[in-house]
């Protein structure tokens, strides 16, 4: 066995967003594996994944969250010692995107003045789902496009904007690789260079 001395950094990613927008499915799909049929899991355990970036190992703990409305004190336990936050929304749910600014950013600001944020569009496969399109059309709505999502990401000063579909396994890995890079970069760079969210 060859022992290589590598630098190891340990980071915590917290995934937040409206309930039902697909957070747990994304995390489950990324680390645990396939869904059984069309069954979407409800529970996700904290899980650690590792990345190698140059000579550094980035060990990242993935934390799913549940809707803690009403449980504000217990929520603080989820937010403790975070390094990066992923806010999720679903492309067929306009409210979930509105809540990014309305609910989640203010919530983050309760705990952090400055923390890297990534905005994540989920369920992108539904953009082509006839049933979903029909239903939205009836309410004279459309699915949320990439540029609409990106606009919100820019507005909240997010580090990045990504999209994926956990169901058809499209773009499930990239967000986490991207996040690994972000935490690696912010770890290497001095604090004041960090891009910050608009307060």
């Amino acid at each position, binding site marked *: 066995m060859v022992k290589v001395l590598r630098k190891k950094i340990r980071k915590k990613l917290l995934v937040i967003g409206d309930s039902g927008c697909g957070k747990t499915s994304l995390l489950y799909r990324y680390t645990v594996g396939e869904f059984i049929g069309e069954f979407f899991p*409800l529970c996700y355990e*904290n899980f650690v994944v590792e990345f190698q970036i140059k000579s550094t190992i980035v060990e990242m703990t993935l934390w799913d969250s549940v809707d803690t409305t009403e449980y*504000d004190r217990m929520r603080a336990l989820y937010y403790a010692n975070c390094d990066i936050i992923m806010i999720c929304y679903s492309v067929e749910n306009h409210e979930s995107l509105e809540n990014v600014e309305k609910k989640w950013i*203010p919530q983050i600001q*309760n*705990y952090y003045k400055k923390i890297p944020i990534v905005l994540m569009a989920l369920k992108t496969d539904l953009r082509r789902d006839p049933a979903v399109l029909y239903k939205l059309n009836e309410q004279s709505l459309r699915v949320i496009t990439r540029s609409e999502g990106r606009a919100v990401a820019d507005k909240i000063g997010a580090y990045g904007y990504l999209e994926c579909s956990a169901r058809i396994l499209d773009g499930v890995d990239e967000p986490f690789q991207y996040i690994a890079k972000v935490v690696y970069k912010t770890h290497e760079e001095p604090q004041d260079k960090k891009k910050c969210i608009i307060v």
Partner: protein
Amino acid sequence: MSSHKSLSSRVSSGAKGLTSSNSNSASTINISKISPSGPIGAASLIMNQKASSENSLFHICITLRKRLEKVNGLKPYLNLAYSTAEYSSDKQADAITASQHNRDSLRKSTNSSYSNFSSSSLTNTNTNTNTNTNSITNSITINSATTINTINSQQSSPLDFTIQSINHNLTTFAAGILPATISCDPVTQIWKLFQQGAPLCLIFNSIKPDHPLPIVSADDIKICKRSVYDFLSACQMFLDLKAENLFTISNVFSENTDDLLTVINSINKVLDLNPNFSLSDSEKKDIILKNLNSSKNINDSRSRIILELIETERKYIFDLEILVNYRNQLLHADLITSESLHLLFPNLNEILDFQRRLLVGIEANSLAPAKYQRIGAIFLYASSIPFKAYEPWSIGQPAAIELINDQQENLQKSSSLINASYELQSFLIKPIQRLLKYPLLLEGILKHSDPAWPTYSEVTSGLEALKGTARDINDAHRKSENVKVLADLYTRVADWRGYELKSFGDLLFHSKLGVRDSDTEKEFFVYLFEKIIFFFKEIITTQKKSSINLAKKKNANYNQNTLSKLELKGRIFIANITYINPSKNASTLTSTLEENDYPTNSHLLTISWSGLRDQGSFIMRFKTDEQRNLWEQCLRNLSVKQHEEILMSDASQNSN
């Protein structure tokens, strides 16, 4: 460090399903110079390990029962144990139903009161008394065994939930109520079997027929204990089993899952001595197919959620057991004080013991047809008392996190089971995460249940009860945090202008808010007590405010070292509040306060008051909708309570 093995080996031995597609797609992106090598589940980490169904108490007992059926002459004892267990199950179901009724009627008359937990209830040492370290020779005599039993049951201290009190009403190892189609659970049956004593002797005789023990069947507990004693001595004498590998008499008669597991492990070891008692592969398969909620039986959304509930519960219990092992290693290394250990794991044993029973209850229920399953009843029961054990755990978290940071070196030195620097915190939060997951799971079950089923209403009330438990714990959390906030407040305010804080009840909420009662909005530190709201102005000293970067790595909600001084600027008595109105936007404001340029993300609450000499109103501006709703709800409750109290005291004065 042992975790620095080659990366590829981690993937292969990794937690299931870190599929190769992950690493393939990793090479397709190259956003910057850095190219991450795809996810590598850190399999060396205990956190990522999966729990096997074979570790569940339910499964362990079914397997053991199958083995015991092969022991000659044991059938009648198994049958007797079955009917005793059945009787216990009925008794438990009756007791739970009755106390549920009592609670319902009680709730109507009184408001639920908070239990008095403070994060500083460190005085209870959390020693692990009932472990297998008990040497058989110490407690071998029947008399001393009974005294041990009584000592154990007297250990309860009033502040801490003991196993006895959280398992209130439980006479079996399955929490809650079994479906009508199931008489008893296998765990209770196995427990009752060993308590008969004689079956143990039969087991011994089938292993060592040349030194047979007398078989005495009796109802008298003394005779039963005598048989256990005979078995234990014979095992040491003729089977070369060491005392530390065996159980004690008190283990057999204990109501604790740890003790039961100790007994079961020893019995399995004894049975291993005779190959006739091992199970064939087809028998093992049969157990899984018939008695466990295996994937074969999963055919609809509801059963999938039940399966998820069971599988994640197994994993949760597995994690709690790891925590117990970890704590024992810390205890052994003797670098962490027992106070600190209690701070890290306030009532781990109680939580683990109950969760095992909860899982037995769920697994037993899962075998019945969906409409008979009493899943709702289980959680209704769990929320009634047992889940209150999560309160001290939750409240202790901030202190535990602090301790981990302070004692990192000693923790690392004491045990490598869990990495203290970053893994431990993820472990300690698990009970809280689990508790908050139950409502989600139950919602799923409810969604896929038929409202016509007799058990349907149980699921709705179970769900409500779970949410109530979480709310209670959250409130208790806030109260415990407020103890420190209140102490800080004393020191931050130089001049109290004659107000006695003690006379205004508990501190409930506090925040820095925008408050306007005239034209301009000013920022105040607002403290809401049960009977009064105080408004303070921050006294800005020349010293610069604490650095923004402090917020990082330190939860901004916990007070930082430098607290500014406050000046008391105003107060409103709750009793004088006449009107509470949430205003989403400024248009619904009262006429005196004209519409103005509030930022779009404003969450307002208008309060009107009327005192003896004057009256007025003001608007508080909150940062979030949730915060506003919490204050509003709280103020409304307080206001009603205050008015009731005034009416009551008026009435009593009039009658005098």
